[in-house]
């Protein structure tokens, strides 16, 4: 009874804190602009099966990708086990899901095996971060804090698995005459070592579930929030061709008016400004991308500008977006502001102009973030609101305006190539 009470209280506290975090993020989302409409659910489901559950983009780096996939699939199975733990905790029962039969054995057995694999891979991930000089783990956006965040998340996951195995081993020891579920790793360990691990069951159970509760409430403030958001982020991804850059409806209205002064002015389109200067100008999807990003740096790793030593790092764009929202969000929610903006105080013009829009970053991103589109949104602000662009581009604009070509040639000469 006391166990049930203590457990219910911890669950209640966990949910309350989590709800508070979600409410805070929700209020930030309300500051953002609409994105594309979410249609074609069938295609989205198949895309999610492929990219999220199938880990298809993760496997573009086969070795480390395989390890990530195992950790991910393991998490899916172990999460089912965690739901059981919550039900057990609330009802004061033990292994309450056993009624689902063979599927229970399957889930519990694979969770037991995955736990060991995850421990091994997490250890490798930690050693890799510490001793291997992996270029994409560095960069200005990879502050010591970001590095700590990565390590803490890895330790959380590691200890979650250790405690799960401890609980399983304790449970097996405490039921010498037959138990529910199948435990390929834990049962083997118990028999091999040959001592009674019964005393591990309770502490293992408690540590496991309390770690989950703490981790869940750490995540909304961590880069590792992708545990929650990456699957929905893939489901809500932009499914259009990577190089399709949406037209700006507010400009279409202006152009229509220019071409036909009698056209009706469509006042349903609300325009604060053209393009993106600060976080209030981005779409909710851009902001969700920034919360989902786990800073793996695969985008920056393939960016031609970054490879050749330019300032641009696609990852930094989304890290900056999240940081800026953390700064201005709480103020803006209360109708206040500051003197800063995402543009210039976080992201420099030099970074924005270095992008070749090659979409290598978007292609690589395991959770389908589209970096070039946000970069071009910020260029739109620079060009259409402030009229600041590199000299070469201003010349190109003038040429298109005057001659219908980006170079200074007369349209009269458009057939010279045939001569």
């Amino acid at each position, binding site marked *: 009874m006391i166990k049930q009470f203590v457990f219910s209280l911890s669950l209640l506290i966990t949910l309350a804190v989590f709800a508070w975090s979600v409410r805070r993020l929700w209020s930030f989302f309300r500051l953002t602009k609409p994105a594309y409409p979410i249609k074609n659910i069938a295609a989205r489901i198949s895309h999610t099966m492929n990219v999220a559950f199938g880990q298809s983009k993760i496997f573009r780096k086969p070795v480390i990708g395989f390890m990530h996939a195992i950790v991910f699939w393991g998490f899916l199975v172990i999460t089912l086990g965690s739901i059981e733990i919550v039900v057990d905790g609330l009802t004061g029962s033990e292994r309450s899901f056993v009624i689902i039969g063979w599927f229970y054995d399957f889930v519990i057995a694979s969770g037991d095996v995955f736990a060991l694999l995850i421990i091994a891979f997490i250890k490798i991930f930690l050693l890799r971060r510490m001793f291997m000089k992996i270029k994409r783990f560095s960069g200005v956006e990879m502050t010591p804090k970001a590095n700590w965040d990565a390590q803490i998340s890895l330790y959380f996951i590691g200890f979650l698995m250790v405690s799960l195995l401890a609980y399983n081993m304790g449970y097996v020891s405490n039921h010498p005459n037959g138990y529910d579920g199948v435990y390929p790793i834990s049962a083997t360990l118990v028999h091999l070592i040959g001592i009674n691990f019964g005393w591990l069951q309770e502490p293992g159970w408690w540590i496991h579930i309390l770690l989950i509760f703490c981790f869940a409430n750490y995540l909304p403030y961590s880069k590792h929030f992708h545990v929650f958001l990456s699957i929905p982020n893939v489901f809500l991804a932009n499914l259009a061709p990577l190089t399709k850059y949406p037209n700006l409806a507010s400009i279409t209205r202006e152009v229509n008016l220019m071409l036909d002064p009698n056209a009706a002015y469509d006042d349903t389109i609300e325009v604060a400004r053209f393009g993106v200067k600060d976080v209030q100008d981005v779409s909710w999807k851009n902001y969700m991308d920034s919360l989902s990003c786990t800073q793996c740096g695969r985008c920056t790793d393939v960016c031609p*500008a970054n490879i050749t030593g330019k300032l641009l790092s696609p990852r930094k764009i989304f890290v900056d977006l999240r940081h800026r929202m953390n700064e201005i969000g709480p103020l803006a929610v209360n109708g206040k502001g500051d003197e800063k903006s995402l543009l210039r105080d976080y992201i420099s013009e030099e970074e924005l102009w270095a992008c*070749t829009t090659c*979409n290598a970053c978007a292609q690589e991103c395991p959770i389908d973030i589209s970096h070039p589109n946000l970069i071009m949104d910020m260029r739109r602000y620079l060009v259409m609101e402030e009229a600041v662009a590199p000299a070469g*581009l201003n010349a190109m*604009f003038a040429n298109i305006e005057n001659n219908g070509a980006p170079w200074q040639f007369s349209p009269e000469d458009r057939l010279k190539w*045939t001569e």
Partner: protein
Amino acid sequence: MTKDTKINVPIMADLAAKGENPEYLYWVGCAGAFDDRYQKVARAFSKILNHLGVSYAVLGKEESCTGDAAKRAGNEMLFQMQAMQNIETLNAYEVKKIICTCPHCYNTLKNEYPDLGGNYEVINYTVFLNEMIQSGKLKLENNPFKGETITYHDPCYLGRGNKIYEAPRNVVKAVFGEVKEMKRSRSFGLCCGAGGAQMFKEAEKGEKEVNIERTEEIIERKVDKVASACPFCMTMLTDGIKLKNKENELQNLDVAEIIERALEL
């Protein structure tokens, strides 16, 4: 080899005056019209179309920049002005099918014009050539490049942008037999450095130019030729090869030029 004679290219306005409506519009693009090097590609492709007896025409003086570079550089206003003007011209001629050599024009016409009222079947020339080869309409009996090796550089707006990876390779293979792939190819392909309006501005400060990074990878592959399918890639790789003083060992060809040479047009 390219002969410096006038080639017969049908013009839309002339055909319309005679009451004719060709099956395809060939969208030449600004580079095809004005860039010294890429004019040769436009010529090559027109000669192939003539050779195949395809019913087509070009807009000529009525063609105007699609606005791609302006859009990627943030000038949405200029882009949409260009788009509206082009859509008006295309719709006036009741154009149904457009073939593009430039992947930037292709991407813009195919993906960005429909929302503004420009709905056409937009075909990339490598896809068109591949279909002609596969269906047997385009017969390639000679290989003027015997004994030479080639690699293929994926233009971003063709490859990652529109998932056209195999068609240009098949066309190259039809003549060369084999494409020696670089490490960074297909969806892993490295940009030439010119997309997103970079073509028209100085690069930002860095350790290296992007086209040099790419050219070095091509040189490492130890091939005689590099094929590409984009005017910007063409410029960047040509410059890269020149800067590396490799003009004698390594030449840059467009997919259409390979077919032109094989057909001895």
